[in-house]
């Protein structure tokens, strides 16, 4: 299957409107399970629809394999019906006047395949998605989860090279969602299609994707493996968007605003005097620990004394809310916390757990080499 390339893709609605997608470069390789992740309104759905051809470009071009399918400069536009892709809509968009079988069969009929082959392929996908028992029903007679399967089956039947999914799981309840995630992963392996998946749910992206592209305000923030995104967020937006509870940010260079940040600044100038121009650092809640006595703080770690103001069980793990004079931090732990609100503890974080960003919020990669010298990199 070919690689999809977006080069400088742009979309704006109206001349003076802000760009829904601004100058986007994206490469989706064969067999990839790519997640477009971002908050609502970040342009991820628009990007997906541009790939499908449902949205035309305001600038730039899209290439599939050797073939340019969309280009403002060259005046090329291949309509969606000729792009040979599959798209599962958020609303499923099943045709209400056709039975499940006819819905699944629709694309095959258009391709004028012989009846026997059509029947075989419809049978295969209906079996694979476990919907053959509903073949004579109409979409309105199915539940959300079943409709979702039909929407998938309808697209898989024509065996598209690329399968585009627009938040297909957002209308399902938690349990069904989990099932469908596993299902999608299985289908990806079975049908060997390239999948582009749009979601605002970070866990969905983390669990499914081989590559995640994080978007915000129409621009690509970072592209990488799920681990990359989490462990090496390219900027503060990515760091803060991915992770729950969110990453704790300590902003440097503003003395008096936060005593913890001031303390961290002192820690850095003492231990890592060569690192300059730090705008802020980020500490993941689960990368921090707490101890009752200062002497138990691990060597080299940054630490600060804080008051426990809340212990929130989340089932299997706990979120601690900690306050100093003018700063609040969150910390997660998997061991039952044997402390109560009001107790004072020492919060500590090892250097390798620190994400360092410059004044513009970009990751300082130089800091990683210094701070993470003890870990694999």
């Amino acid at each position, binding site marked *: 299957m070919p690689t999809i390339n977006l*080069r400088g893709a742009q979309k704006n609605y109206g001349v003076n409107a802000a760009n829904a997608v601004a100058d986007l470069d994206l490469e989706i390789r064969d067999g990839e399970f790519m997640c477009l992740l971002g908050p609502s309104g970040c342009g991820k759905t628009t990007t997906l629809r541009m790939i499908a051809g449902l949205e035309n470009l305001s600038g730039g071009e899209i290439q599939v394999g050797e073939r340019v399918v969309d280009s403002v400069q060259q005046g090329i536009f291949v*309509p969606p*019906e000729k792009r040979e892709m599959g798209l599962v809509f958020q609303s499923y968009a099943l045709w209400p006047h056709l039975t499940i079988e006819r819905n699944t069969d629709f694309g095959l009929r258009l391709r004028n395949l012989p009846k026997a082959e059509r029947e075989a392929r419809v049978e295969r996908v209906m079996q694979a998605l476990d919907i053959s028992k509903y073949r004579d029903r109409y979409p309105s007679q199915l539940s959300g989860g079943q409709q979702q399967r039909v929407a998938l089956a309808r697209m898989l039947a024509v065996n598209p090279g690329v399968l585009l999914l627009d938040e297909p799981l957002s209308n399902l309840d938690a349990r069904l969602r989990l099932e469908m995630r596993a299902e999608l992963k299985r289908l990806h392996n079975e049908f060997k299609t390239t999948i582009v998946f749009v979601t605002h749910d970070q866990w969905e992206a983390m669990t499914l994707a081989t590559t995640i592209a994080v978007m915000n305000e129409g621009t690509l923030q970072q592209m990488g493996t799920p681990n990359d995104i989490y462990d090496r967020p390219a900027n503060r937006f990515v760091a803060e968007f991915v992770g729950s509870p969110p990453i704790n940010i300590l902003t440097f260079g503003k003395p008096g605003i936060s005593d913890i940040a001031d303390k961290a600044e002192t820690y850095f100038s003492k231990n890592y005097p060569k690192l300059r121009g730090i705008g802020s650092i980020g500490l993941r809640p689960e990368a921090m620990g707490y101890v009752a006595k200062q002497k138990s703080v691990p060597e080299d770690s940054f630490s600060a004394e804080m008051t426990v103001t809340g212990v929130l069980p989340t089932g299997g793990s706990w979120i601690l809310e900690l306050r100093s004079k003018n700063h609040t931090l969150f910390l997660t732990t998997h061991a039952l916390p044997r402390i109560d609100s009001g107790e004072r503890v020492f919060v500590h974080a090892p250097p390798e757990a620190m994400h360092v960003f410059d004044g513009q919020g970009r990751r300082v990669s130089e800091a990683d080499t210094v701070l993470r010298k003890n870990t694999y990199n």
Partner: protein
Amino acid sequence: MALLSETTNADTPARGASSAPSAWQTWRYRLKIALREPTTLIGVLTAVLFTYLIVVPIISIVLDSVRVQFGHERRLGKDVGDLTVYYLDRAFFSPVATDLFWRPLLNTLTVALGAISLSLVIGTVLAWLISRTDMFGRRWFATALIVPYMLPAWTFALAWTTLFKNRTVGGQPGWFEAIGLTPPDWVAYGRFPITIILALHYTPFVILLFGSALRRFDSQLEDSARILGARRYQVAIQIIMPLMRPALLSSMVLIFAKCLGEFGVPYVLGLPVKFEVLSTSLFRSIASRQTGVAGVVAASIMLIGIITLMIDARLVREARRFVTIGSKGSMNRQNRLGKLRLPATGFAAAVFIVSVAMPLLTLVLSTVMKVPARFTLDNFTLDYWIGTDLHTVALQTGILLSPDLWAAAKNTMMIVGLASLVSGVLGLLVGYVVIRTPVRSLSIYLRQVTFLPYLVPGIAFAAAYLSLFAVPRGPMPALYGTVTILILALIADQMPYASRAGISAMTQLGKDPEEAAQIAGAGWFRRMIYIVIPIQKGSLVTGVLLPFISGIKGLSLFVILAVPSTDVLTTFSLRLVDYHYTQAANAVVLIIAAIAYFGTLLAQKLTRTNLAEGLGS
């Protein structure tokens, strides 16, 4: 991998492909997309068609009012077509202006205001009783009280004359006259009966609009006020009324706009005492070939109509601010009426009797009685329906045996049927183009131009058609007296409803099902045939049926554009009224009413919706 993830960061290196496209390139690309599918082409064609059918006639009649008309060259010392203020002067400032314009205007306004006040009082009470109380038979009343709206307004005018006609006018006397109680002129004709009848006819408007606003009202808002200690009347005055105001104002404005174009009722009841409103004055100007003055009056009616409906549009926008989101609390909470339960039911029943039962019964009885108001067995006959050899000058058979009726029925079916079919299909097409075309200006133009006739009362619109198509223009032959002009005018007149139905159907459908088909590989024609049309079958049927019903009971367009050879049922019955064939006229009106009523029921059944949404036809 780590390195890669950092280089894909915001600041990107210069690339050939992403340099901004030139204006020419962007334009070429957009054009390619716009012309890729027939949508835009269809849009352009329909836009041209509606410009010709809607905009041009309106411009034409406005021009008529400021240009010298045929036959006035001598008096004005100018050639036909030269600019003149003569007609404006004549209609607004001359000694005859009072009769031509100012008194009709005053009459229109007072009748409309009277009708509005009366229907608001009756309508709000009924709406509240139906939607928020435990009155007996609420459900039945909810349908029964809407019936006057399904019938042509002048059905009631004919019922009124049947009862109250006095010796001022010749022909068969009214029932009261016949039993010796001569009703005074002010009861029999003119302002009083017109106001009452319009009020009764438009009360359903208030019931529907106000009632649906009441039902949508979130009772949690009410409960919150009660919990904070407000009494019932305080809740009513401080919470419910302010939130209901947009619905009330909107129904007022709509009734006003409808009264403005109402022709049948003032024609039947106003003529005997020379009580003129704007629409009848316009009719008289046209009948006496005063095209210039007719232009002025028609343009004035249009202007008032446009202003009124713009106010309405504004109010609707205002009302949207008040839309209470979340229908969780909007359950049908009922107030217990207690001791008032029976009187309330009595009130609703009384309104039903006065506005539906009595008029219809009167009409039915009048068609089977030889002498008015004599209730003896030998006075009843079916001769007026199916008799032969009646001793009358014309129409010597019962109405059902008269070839004239069937000719008129055939004309009606053909003219109204064809026009509705065409406008239904065009409506869906317009809906499709408006929602789908990538050319925004085309979408906006089509939406507005098809809505324009709504702002123009039917009688003024008919006058506009007459002004444009009465004489040959360019390749178009003179159309006056032909079936074509009626069909064209009807199509244009019905486009607001048809295109609105089409647009809302396409909006409801959304673009997903069609895009899914596109992704599956279906081109434009296949999507139309396999997806869009099958899904929209139901709305297409109603898009044809609703214009058909309103066309059947429509009078104002036909009365100006029809000639005896293109008689339809409505004009046929009006002619019978003019010749004082009371029984026959009433019978024809009953036939029309029956078609309109059962048609409406059918349309409701097909769409499984309430009439409230199709308001205005």
